[in-house]
């Protein structure tokens, strides 16, 4: 037993007196737990949600409806038929001019494959516009709302056949309607504001494009598009209010969080609406029994009918006048049965008053494999870059060649630069092969491979630079590998790969901005999944370049100082 004690005591002393072992075994777990704990500290934080509310006055001047339908000419004919005046226009711009000048209150562009869009302007009579919009929306396969006519036209042309309709928001018949709920009137803005308070931090946008830009930049985690007539549909018996939520699926976790938050508060709105309607139905049913005003219909009430029928049964044989009264009672009973049937329809339509349509900022829904590839490549670059940079630098000292090399004609720049080039080459080739395999073999999405390769090249610089910094604290290859892994592992938790940045505490978000990997992931996701061009990721590229140069300079300085 004494021997065991001696051995354990010896091993403890060896651990205690070896700084690296001490850090790895005793201190590092606390560091990791600290980082993870800090990252998840505020996991209940509201999701930043961009909202484009088209169902309110004072929004965009013109609301554009993209009506996807295989036969736009049918809808177009309806327009011409119902309009008081119609004019064919040479272009959408001309139609818009007419709209802005007040000559028209509706403009349309019919898009059919193989032919140029046919633009027209129309003046609709009072009441017709609302009916027409309802009619067209219900006959289209899908309706999208946009804030730019030209953008909508391009989108429609890319999608196939459809009709683009523009209506001045001032002419829109049902914007800003309100709904009585919980003892007060709610318009769309107050509904969103009240019901999203705990789960989302709402930022309102006037334009869809601005909201989507912020979604791409990670300033919001989702964009909710409230269509014109949203509240009106909530109130209507036979309609469902459809909202569109755009998610950034390049980060699956972020998208999941955002979708859950949006679904959460929309379902709360649905519940309240259903509750209000049920309350109305219950009151209505009571009226059916007691008698009174049932949604505008004066009903006698079942109790009265029952009394009459009882009276009839007793007196029918003695008094011929009662025969007429019996006839009236039968008529009333028919009316009541019809009303109850309507009430049943009402209940069916209120079961799901809000429907969510999910789209991706990438333009198409992303699969898990699509979203995972940029993160995997960034992680691979981090580990390969840090390890490659650190090991190549330490290798000289481990082999004892550092001294000899410093005596040769080659300056420190060449000694560090040559390693940097080799390491950058290794990281670049490895990451490029991963990218190409992911795209070619697994069919992962990469909107622009060339821009992804540029991002990889810039990212590799900073990763290797971090490796040089690590090398300054290691004497042997094994030590450099361990230090490299210890250094890079916590970064994974801070850079939004695992947990969305927007849901982290503010100091962690600031910290994340000081880590190149954050920019690598953002730029790679941008060019591969969100269809960003060079301008869209220029900020990330410059940050990566800056970090690369900074870490290279710092690493070189530390390595030189240690050599001295």
């Amino acid at each position: 037993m004494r021997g065991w004690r001696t051995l354990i005591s010896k091993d403890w002393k060896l651990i205690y007196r070896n700084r690296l072992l001490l850090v790895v075994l005793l201190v590092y777990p606390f560091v990791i737990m600290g980082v993870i704990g800090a990252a998840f500290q505020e996991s209940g934080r509201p999701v930043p949600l961009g909202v484009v509310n088209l169902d309110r006055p004072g929004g965009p001047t013109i609301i554009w409806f993209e009506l996807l339908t295989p036969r736009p000419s049918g809808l177009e004919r309806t327009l011409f038929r119902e309009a008081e005046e119609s004019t064919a226009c040479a272009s959408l711009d001309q139609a818009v001019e007419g709209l802005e000048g007040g000559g028209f209150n509706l403009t349309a562009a019919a898009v059919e494959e193989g032919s140029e869009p046919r633009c027209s302007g129309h003046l609709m009579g009072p009441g017709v516009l609302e009916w027409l919009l309802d009619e067209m929306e219900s006959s289209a396969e899908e309706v999208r709302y946009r804030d730019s006519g030209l953008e909508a036209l391009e989108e429609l042309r890319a999608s196939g056949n459809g009709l683009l309709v523009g209506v001045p928001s001032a002419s829109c018949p049902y914007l800003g309607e309100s709904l009585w709920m919980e003892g007060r009137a709610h318009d769309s803005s107050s509904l969103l504001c009240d019901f999203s308070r705990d789960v989302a931090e709402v930022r309102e946008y006037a334009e869809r494009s601005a909201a989507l830009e912020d979604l791409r930049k990670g300033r919001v985690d989702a964009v909710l598009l409230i269509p014109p007539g949203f509240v009106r549909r909530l109130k209507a018996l036979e309609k469902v209010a459809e909202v569109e939520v755009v998610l950034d699926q390049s980060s699956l976790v972020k998208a999941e969080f955002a979708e859950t938050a949006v679904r959460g508060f929309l379902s709360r709105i649905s519940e309240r609406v259903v509750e209000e309607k049920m309350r109305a139905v219950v009151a209505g049913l009571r009226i059916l029994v007691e008698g009174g005003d049932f949604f505008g219909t004066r009903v006698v009430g079942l109790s009265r009918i029952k009394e009459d029928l009882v009276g009839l049964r007793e007196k029918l044989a003695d008094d011929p006048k009662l025969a007429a009264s019996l006839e009236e009672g039968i008529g009333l009973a028919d009316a009541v049965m019809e009303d109850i049937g309507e009430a049943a329809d009402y209940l069916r339509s209120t079961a799901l008053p809000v429907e969510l349509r999910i789209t991706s900022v990438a333009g198409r829904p992303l699969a898990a494999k699509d979203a995972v590839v940029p993160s995997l490549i960034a992680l691979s670059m981090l580990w390969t870059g840090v390890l490659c940079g650190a090991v190549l630098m330490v290798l000289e000292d481990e082999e004892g060649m550092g001294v000899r090399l410093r005596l040769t004609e080659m300056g420190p720049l060449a000694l560090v630069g040559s390693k940097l080039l080799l390491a950058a080459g290794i990281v670049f080739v490895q990451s490029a092969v991963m990218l190409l395999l992911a795209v070619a073999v697994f069919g992962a999405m990469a909107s622009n491979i060339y821009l992804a390769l540029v991002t990889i090249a810039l990212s590799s610089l900073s990763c290797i630079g971090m490796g040089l910094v690590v090398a300054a604290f290691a004497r042997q290859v094994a030590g450099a590998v361990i230090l490299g892994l210890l250094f890079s592992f916590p970064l994974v938790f801070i850079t939004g790969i695992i947990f969305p940045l927007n849901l982290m505490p503010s100091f962690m978000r600031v910290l994340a901005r000081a880590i190149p990997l954050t920019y690598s992931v953002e730029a790679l996701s941008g060019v591969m999944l969100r269809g960003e061009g060079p301008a869209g990721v220029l900020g990330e590229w410059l940050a990566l370049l800056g970090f690369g140069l900074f870490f290279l300079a710092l690493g070189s300085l530390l390595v030189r100082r240690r050599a001295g």
Partner: protein
Amino acid sequence: MTEQGRGLFLEVRGLEKDFRGYRALEGVSIEVKEGETFGLIGPNGAGKTTLVRILTGQIAPTRGEILVDGRPIQPEEHRFRRRLGLVPQEPSFYGRLTPAENLALLAGLYGISTHRASERVRELLEWAGLREHARRQVRFLSRGMQQRLSLAMGLVHDPEILFLDEPTSGLDPEARSAVWEMVRELSGQGRTIFMTTHNMEEADHLCHRLAILVMGKIRERGTPAEIKRLLGTDRLELRLEEGGLPELMRVCRELSLDCGEEEGVMVVSGDSLPEKLPLIASRLSGSLRDLRYREVTLEDAFLRFMEEVGN
């Protein structure tokens, strides 16, 4: 070994080096003549490697002056670095490269043309006895072969002065002997060599002149013979029959020799002891049980010196 040399090649004046409050070198002044092998001896931690690192431009001195060919220089100067070769104390080569690749790499980094480099590699492999092992990875070679390669690597660019930092440390006698032979050959070719060692036999065999560095200070300098003379002399150890002591004392008085007792053995020392030895032996022939002549070695002298410094 006779002292060689023409002019001064390297001169160090009042060199000092401080490391975070600890003075590793203090007022070090030495002179290395052109073509000589200069040895710096001293115990572990004396500051030998620090001095080599300063002279080869790896670290800067805190104070002091270094002159080459009579002109002050900064050792990290590119022009001077080109003129020096270094064989570090620790193994220094790429283990996964072959000897030929290691040599060719350095030749390339010193800017030697490809054609000349391949010639130079061949010459050095031949000189170091590694021609047959030229294509084996260095990590598979014996420690002796690796040290011979290390020596050859220090000579790739044909430097004027070669710094050897404890070149035979950790080698077996055979390997050490081979390295000594190579150093002697270089010295014979007139190459200036600056070597550090704590092996006194090595210093005695290889160096024309020596300096003793203890605790960062140069304590003695001179040829090995001068240092031996300074620090100790040859001596005669005698064991006598009873009654022989008075005759020994008489002889020592007559021959002006010192005489004393150390652990039951009579010790006689003084000038021209080898010449006086036959007379002593004949005078004491009747009472002499045992006689040993002990020639002083550099190691004896050094140990005695260290004892004095310690005291």
